[in-house]
């Protein structure tokens, strides 16, 4: 029960007044980021990352992870009230959440959404508390080949699970790897792919890519769709909250199922968005009131919100224990670790106990605080959305530019941000997924290093990746994930054949 002691130590770290303040600020900023179009978890965290350089790593990660929880909560507000998903993972919440608001049950829908989010996150955090140390302990035995295997598995699951065409996912991912390779080669110290441009010496920073692709790209998409915010008033009062809470236990089965789906999709880097859709779809099929879904069924709010939040939280498990982030936001947090001078991966659990358990404790507390904040401040956040786009858009642009500049104090990065923004807009319109691209920029150097170290020890033979039981099973899992859609097809064909 060493973990429990560690967790309590973590709580003592989190409960320091400064860390509590940082947590509250993080949650508030996060909800605002989640509510605003064009600002999401990933680029919100990226923009604010430079502000944490002067903090201790523990306070910094508490603030940034709380921004993430806040953004997860915030997405639901816009979905329910305005029928505009603030975040991609809250699209499924609009299906039943907005009809409820139109029927004057906005308070009920919001309470259900926030509470479900909280339940999903809590489930995932408990899972992280129990599982992450074990995974980390196990991963300590990994050599370069196994490490590469884990990266391979992560990226293969992206290809196999994404709803975009597989070769578009591969192309996007490999573009990320290529961008990561630009600049100084960490193994040989040689310059590569810079073509004599001094600006490219240090390569492409993933933070710039995140701010450009997700921030600027998203604003361009928003203005193209010509969004205007028209929505119902948000009335939440304690009576509605308690009434909804009394009703929610009835959907415990939906909740539990959504938690499991969310955790699974979060650990394998499919992410919160597919998790919310999948959970909604299954709930609709299984529920007794399935035919009423889409017309304001509270269960249709519970299912996607629980899964999205569970997935968003579970995405931190592989980041903490293996150094492989499960979502773009987790990737940005991982980048933060590198900047603060921490080496992500299993050793964190041995060398940085205070950091790891402080973070885990802050997940418990952060979600409680988050729930209270959103339940009490909904009208305030809804008011932010009523700020006209002509004012909010340039302000968001300004913050993106500031975020991009502060990464390296370079105005060239601001230009790159704009380029990434245009690229992100076009790629998104053409169904190229952006998450694998960003993840590849973050992990590119590490994956390459693991790959080359493995080859070095095997004198260039690819046989090293099947040289022992552990690495071959990881690689085999990767291949299964890669070809999952084909395997699934084959199965359904086998099953339907006798019927014909």
């Amino acid at each position, binding site marked *: 029960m060493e973990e429990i002691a560690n967790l309590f130590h973590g709580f003592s770290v989190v409960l320091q007044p400064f860390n509590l303040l940082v947590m509250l600020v993080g949650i508030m900023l996060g909800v605002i980021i989640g509510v605003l179009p064009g600002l999401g978890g990933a680029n919100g965290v990226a923009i604010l990352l*430079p*502000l944490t350089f*002067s903090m201790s790593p523990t306070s910094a990660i508490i603030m940034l992870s709380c921004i993430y929880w806040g953004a997860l909560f915030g997405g639901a507000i816009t979905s329910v009230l305005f029928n505009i998903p603030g975040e991609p993972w809250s699209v499924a919440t609009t299906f039943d959440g907005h009809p409820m608001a139109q029927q004057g049950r906005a308070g009920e829908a919001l309470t259900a959404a926030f509470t479900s989010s909280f339940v999903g996150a809590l489930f995932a955090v408990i899972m992280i508390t129990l599982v992450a140390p074990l995974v980390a302990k196990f991963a300590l035995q990994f050599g370069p080949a196994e490490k590469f295997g884990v990266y391979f598995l992560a990226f293969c699951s992206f290809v196999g699970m994404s709803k975009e*065409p597989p*070769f*578009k996912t*591969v*192309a996007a991912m*490999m*573009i990320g*790897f*290529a961008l990561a*390779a630009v600049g100084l*080669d960490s*193994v*040989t110290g*040689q*310059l*590569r*792919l*810079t*073509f004599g441009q001094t600006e490219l010496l240090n390569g492409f920073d993933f933070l710039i890519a995140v701010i450009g692709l997700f921030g600027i790209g998203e*604003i*361009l998409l928003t*203005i*193209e*769709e*010509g969004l205007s915010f028209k929505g119902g008033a948000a009335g939440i009062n304690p009576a509605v909250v308690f009434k909804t809470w009394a009703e929610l236990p009835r959907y415990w089965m939906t909740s539990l199922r959504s938690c499991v789906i969310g955790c699974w999709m979060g650990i394998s880097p499919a992410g919160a968005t597919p998790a919310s859709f999948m959970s909604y779809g299954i709930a609709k099929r299984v529920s007794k009131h399935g035919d009423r879904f889409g017309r304001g069924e509270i269960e249709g709010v519970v299912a996607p919100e629980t899964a999205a939040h569970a997935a968003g939280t579970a995405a931190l498990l592989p980041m903490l224990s293996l150094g492989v982030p499960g979502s773009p936001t987790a990737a940005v947090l991982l980048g933060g670790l590198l900047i603060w001078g921490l080496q992500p991966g299993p050793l964190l659990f041995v060398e940085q106990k205070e950091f790891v358990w402080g973070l885990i404790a802050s997940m418990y507390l952060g979600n409680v605080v988050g729930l209270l904040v959103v339940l009490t401040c909904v009208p305030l956040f809804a008011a932010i959305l009523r700020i*006209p*786009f*002509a*004012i909010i*858009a*340039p*302000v968001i*642009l*300004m913050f993106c*530019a*500031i975020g991009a*500049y*502060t990464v390296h*104090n370079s*105005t060239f990065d*601001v*230009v790159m*941000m*704009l380029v990434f923004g*245009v690229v992100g*807009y*076009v*790629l998104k*319109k*053409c169904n*190229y997924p952006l998450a694998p691209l960003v993840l590849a920029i973050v992990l590119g150097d590490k994956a*390459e290093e693991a*790959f*080359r170290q493995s*080859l*070095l020890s095997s004198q*260039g033979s690819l046989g090293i990746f099947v040289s022992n039981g552990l690495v071959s099973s990881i690689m085999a899992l990767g291949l299964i994930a890669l070809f999952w859609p084909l395997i699934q097809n084959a199965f359904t064909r086998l099953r339907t054949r006798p019927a014909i």
Partner: protein
Amino acid sequence: MSENFEGTRGAGPGQRPVEMGVAVAIALFALVVIAGSLQVGVGWGAEGPKAGFFPFYVGLVILGSSIINFGAVWSERRNDQLFAEWGQLGKVMSMLIPTAIYVALVPWIGIYVASMLLIAVFMRWLGRYGWGMIAAIAVGVPVVTFIIFEKWFLVPLPKGPIEELLGF
């Protein structure tokens, strides 16, 4: 899409040509990556795989998948979906062009003054606000940002001649 754009409604570049263009652009990017890798060597050197080894194969995979993507778009001839309507693209441009000018101005006049101009232009052009309101927000937001970044967090942002005149 509630707004009407005279004469341009419903017209615009098709999804298919744009997707083909994107596939070609990605293939060109792959060729650049491959060329750059070849420059530094893609073989096996004294210290193991050379610097270009990994990006070389990455480049090959990008090239391969963009050819497949191109083929996939090429074969779906029936697709007459629009990429976006001209009116929508116009809106995107009305956002993009001021932003590009903004980004170009930042190194010269600093981020604060550039942001004031950006906010003012947007509010006037897209929002048609009165000058009083514009002045309040366009000056207020950057000033608050200045206090937060330069004073509280001690993060210096690019400044121009006007800040210098004011003694910062």
